[in-house]
């Protein structure tokens, strides 16, 4: 929709001054949220931030690289329990969080290997198998999961005399912001373009000089790094971990968030994360209906708006910008 004239311009996050204004206002509103919104809303927004990290990771894999993974639940669990064990040993949270991401990333690398040989549905099943195997291993080996009673993690104590909820909000907001900016940079770099090339046509990508093995594995590793960090942050936020928090359903939720939010878009990932968190809140009186809402939305999105919420948003902006001309 924009005419890009130079590479510098391509690298810019925001190209129009007006966009800069409203994005600035939006970020400001988010920054001030704990001061005007009720506690409940702040709490939900915090969870959305945590989720948006994992959804971005999943979107990098599905939307940008075009590799399907149903094993995201496993990376969540690996990240969360790595974080839990390290935090219990008294290691400070930045190191444990990094280790959580790295552990998940390392397993992502392992899961990435089948992707070198498998495509489409077959890869989906291989990752599905991995996800379920990891869940069951955590379920059956209490050494890993901290036993039947679950694993207690000491929460962060608030700094600067802020209330706990507000502190958690800012903490997760900053981390999510860092990861979102990192994601934008990954996508607009050589790496991101290599991922997109692999998605569009892997043989052609190989021919023009993209190292297929390296970039497929890298995509898996980065994606699971993000997911692992989400797991760690979630554990730190809730203060409690058990294997049943990371079932097959959790992987499906991440997947649904990507599809509904919009494939291959960072903003879409955040919208998708908000969707999967807000729907259970809105339908809390009809818990059984939550999957129905997910399912119906998936059907509608895939048939009528394959680009998801982001696509709708994009078209709306385009319409307003060109108004009254279509």
């Amino acid at each position: 929709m924009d005419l890009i004239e130079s590479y510098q311009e391509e690298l810019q996050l925001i190209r129009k001054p007006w966009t800069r204004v409203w994005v600035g206002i939006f970020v400001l509103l988010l920054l001030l949220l704990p001061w005007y919104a009720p506690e409940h809303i702040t709490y939900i927004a915090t969870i959305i931030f945590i989720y948006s990290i994992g959804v971005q990771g999943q979107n990098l894999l599905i939307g940008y690289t075009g590799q399907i993974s149903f094993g995201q639940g496993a990376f969540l669990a690996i990240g969360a329990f790595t974080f839990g064990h390290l935090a219990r040993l008294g290691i400070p949270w930045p190191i444990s969080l990094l280790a959580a991401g790295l552990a998940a990333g390392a397993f992502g690398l392992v899961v990435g290997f089948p992707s070198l040989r498998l495509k489409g549905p077959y890869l989906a099943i291989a990752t599905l198998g991995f996800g379920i195997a990891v869940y069951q291993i955590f379920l059956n080996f209490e050494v890993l999961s901290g036993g039947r009673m679950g694993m207690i993690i000491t929460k962060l104590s608030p700094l600067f005399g802020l209330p706990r909820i507000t502190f958690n909000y800012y903490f997760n907001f900053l981390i999510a912001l860092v990861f979102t900016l990192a994601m934008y940079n990954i996508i607009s770099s050589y790496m991101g373009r290599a991922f997109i090339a692999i998605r569009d046509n892997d043989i052609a990508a190989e021919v023009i000089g993209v190292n297929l093995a390296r970039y497929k594995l890298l995509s898996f590793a980065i994606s699971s790094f993000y997911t692992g960090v989400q797991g760690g942050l979630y554990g730190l936020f809730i203060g409690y971990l058990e294997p049943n928090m990371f079932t097959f359903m959790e992987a499906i939720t991440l997947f649904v968030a990507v599809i509904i939010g919009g494939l291959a878009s960072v903003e879409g990932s955040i919208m998708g994360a908000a969707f999967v968190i807000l729907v259970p809140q809105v339908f809390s009186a009809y818990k059984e209906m939550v999957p129905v809402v997910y399912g119906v939305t998936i059907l509608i999105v895939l048939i009528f708006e394959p680009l998801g919420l982001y696509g709708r948003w994009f078209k709306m902006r385009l319409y307003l910008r060109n108004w009254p001309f279509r």
Partner: protein
Amino acid sequence: MTLFLQYAISGLATGSIYALVALGLALIYRSTRILNFAHGDMTTAGTFFAFTLLGLNLHWGLAFILALLFGSALAIVFYFSVLVPAQRREATQLGQIILTLGLGLILQGLVSYFGGTVPQSFPFPLSDTKIYRIGSVVISQLSLGTFGIGLFASLLFYLLVQKTRLGLAMRATSENLPAAQTMGIPTRSILALSWGLAALLGVLAGLFLAPTLLLDPFFMLEPFLKGFAAAILGGLNSLPGAIVGGLILGVAESLAGGFVSIAFKNTFAFLIIILVLLVRPEGLLGTEFKERV
């Protein structure tokens, strides 16, 4: 040795359930190249339908037949109302797989809303406690029945696909869709029929599985995933492969549970998936995957 035989026999009964599920998945994959993630939930819906009918004091034979028809009707309706419009809008293969995932979520939610999430026991004409002895091996009436129905359904299905005109049309459609259309085969109805048959096989498996487990909206999840494993093991586009894969998986899992560790039993199937996909992606009897990059 007795112990080995005992495990193998009980594995065969579970294996025939997996085989039925795998057969349905393979049938759909073969004809439409779609992995049906809603298979488990369609099965659950059918089984719950039978459960409701039994609660209305209907005769079990009638209830079961109605449930089988209900399951296949569900699949056919999904095919016509969702997949066909999606294909008209040129949905990708991945998109169609995700559509089945969406259907699965919808069915799962509806079943838990109307059926309740409390596990219930499923009344069944065959008993789990009445046992027969063959030499030193014990087999329950229910396992025998399950194994029998698995073999019988597979045989009927084989005859349908290999010996009838309808089966010929199904094979033609799965082999080459445009060519089949040119030959005047009503491919759309044939594909709808394949979906219906697959769901029917799934519901059959669900009906025979429900008495051994407790009936709740998630009871089919694990057998469904194992059916997937079995289909992969045998080769996703091979129907005999699905049956062989199901039986092998059932026996192997039962032996692993008996001799290695019971905690390891459920993980085993998923490790098999990964190993098979890494070593021989086309499965034991499949023929696909000749592409190289």
